[in-house]
């Protein structure tokens, strides 16, 4: 198990706000993530978890606030957003594998066109990751021939293969039945052990309690409560948190 490096934050987000027309989805959220740390975002549907992750990856335009990645402000005007995104992996609930490409080509695509790696090198990296999740023998298969769990694990390694500084997981097990979500959770445990920095929005509270170092409870676009995972679940302070935990667990 790798240790968390507390010397300086990997990701720092201050006062993140996001409005869709006149609806305020995020009303000023702060976030600090340290290298090697796993942060879990929990909260009911519509609390702003997914929007927060999308804002961090810059696929959603901020309404206000600032974000720094390794001390470099990535929310400043004129920054190369494509390059930032290749440094921050984002994985979706619905996998979103490219339907016209085999899973090997799915993993290779960004290695080649974004990181400009040669075809051989990209193949080597991609096969290495597919092997790690036990899908090397299915490398030539198209996504629709795989189970949901296999697709989601491929989607995760597609993001991780780029060696991002930060991995964002947006309810990656919500579309899977318990057995298949188990495979995906196993991969996340594996990534944690190799030191990947992760922010994950999740409904799997028992998993959050097990792997997360820090838990944030989002409620109606603001942080209602946050704390060390063990404390957070053992003795929640906020009334809304107690109510949420009582309802879900």
């Amino acid at each position, binding site marked *: 198990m790798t240790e968390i490096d507390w010397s300086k934050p990997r990701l720092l987000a201050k006062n993140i706000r996001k409005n869709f027309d006149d609806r305020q989805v995020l009303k000023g959220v702060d976030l600090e993530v340290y290298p090697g740390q796993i942060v879990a975002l929990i909260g009911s549907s519509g609390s702003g978890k997914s929007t927060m992750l999308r804002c961090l990856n810059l696929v959603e335009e901020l309404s206000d606030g600032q974000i720094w990645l390794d001390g470099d402000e990535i929310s400043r005007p004129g920054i190369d957003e494509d390059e930032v995104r290749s440094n921050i992996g984002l994985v979706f609930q619905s996998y979103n594998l490219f339907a016209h490409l085999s899973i090997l080509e799915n993993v290779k*695509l960004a290695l080649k066109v*974004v990181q400009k790696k040669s075809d051989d090198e990209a193949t080597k990296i991609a096969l290495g990751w597919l092997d790690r999740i036990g899908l090397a023998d299915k490398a030539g298969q198209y996504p629709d021939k795989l189970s949901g769990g296999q697709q989601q694990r491929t989607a995760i390694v597609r993001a991780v293969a*780029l060696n991002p500084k930060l991995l964002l997981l947006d309810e990656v097990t919500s579309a899977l039945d318990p057995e298949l979500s188990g495979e995906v959770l196993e991969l996340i445990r594996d990534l944690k052990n190799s030191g990947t920095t992760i922010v994950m929005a999740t409904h799997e509270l028992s998993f959050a309690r097990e792997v997360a170092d820090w838990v944030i409870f989002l409620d109606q676009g603001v942080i209602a409560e946050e704390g060390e995972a063990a404390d957070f679940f053992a003795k929640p302070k906020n009334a809304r948190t107690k109510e949420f935990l009582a309802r879900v667990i």
Partner: protein
Amino acid sequence: MSQSEISSAQHARETWRVSRKRRSTLTAILSTVAFAVVAWLLLVNTPGWSRVQTSFFDWDTAVKAFPHVLDGLWLNLRVLVYATISVLIFALLLALATTLRNPVLTPIRLLAKGYIDLFRGTPLIITLYLVGFGIPGLRIEGLGRIAPEILGTIALTLTYSAYVAEVFRAGIESIHPSQRLAARSLGLSYSQSVRLVVLPQAIRKVVPPLMNDFVALQKDVGLISVLGAVDAVRGAQIEVSHFANFTPYVIAGLFFVLLAIPTVRLTDWLSARMAKREQMGTLL
């Protein structure tokens, strides 16, 4: 369980299925034959049938006109190839222009939309006249005399690009935005995500409707004859005046049908295959 040990219930079911299938095949054959006989009798009993027979279906004229019409068809085929290539390129550019979201490029988007509206609305024959007689009328220096088949190809491209652009646009919009989102989140630029993720999937989806437009184009290449190009239709027309007999038109018509049949069958096959992929396992 092997095939030899099916239950009696399954055996009864299969016997019934086979007998039902045999009966419906027999009904289909009988009704087709009956219909053909009735249609044939109605035709040959019309008062002018014998005159129509000699002026449209004359074997000697057919044999003599055949080589000239076939020569003309060769021109149609060449125009078809050039028009198809230029339509695919131009239509794809038009379709991409209509999907632009960047406000700076709004004029390009509006221009493309306006173009599509204009040329989808204009009858092909009008476009042929405008291009065929308008462009030479400009007397542009150094251009010389442009062959009518080239002007015809330009007119066909202008009209068909408008239709095909709409097909491409529908294909592009049928690809779920989450595919583009995934591409962008991996660091692909806008144009990379369109080129490498959206377009390959969109083009696959629109192959059957594109083939349909191709069949239509195969026939419409015959319209370049109005500009004086000696294609299969104009070739037939010359033979018609020569023999004072309409049979060469029938020959030209048959040529176009023969040209279309393989494409039509291929389109059917492709559509059926795609439908099968999309609704695997369903019976109806």
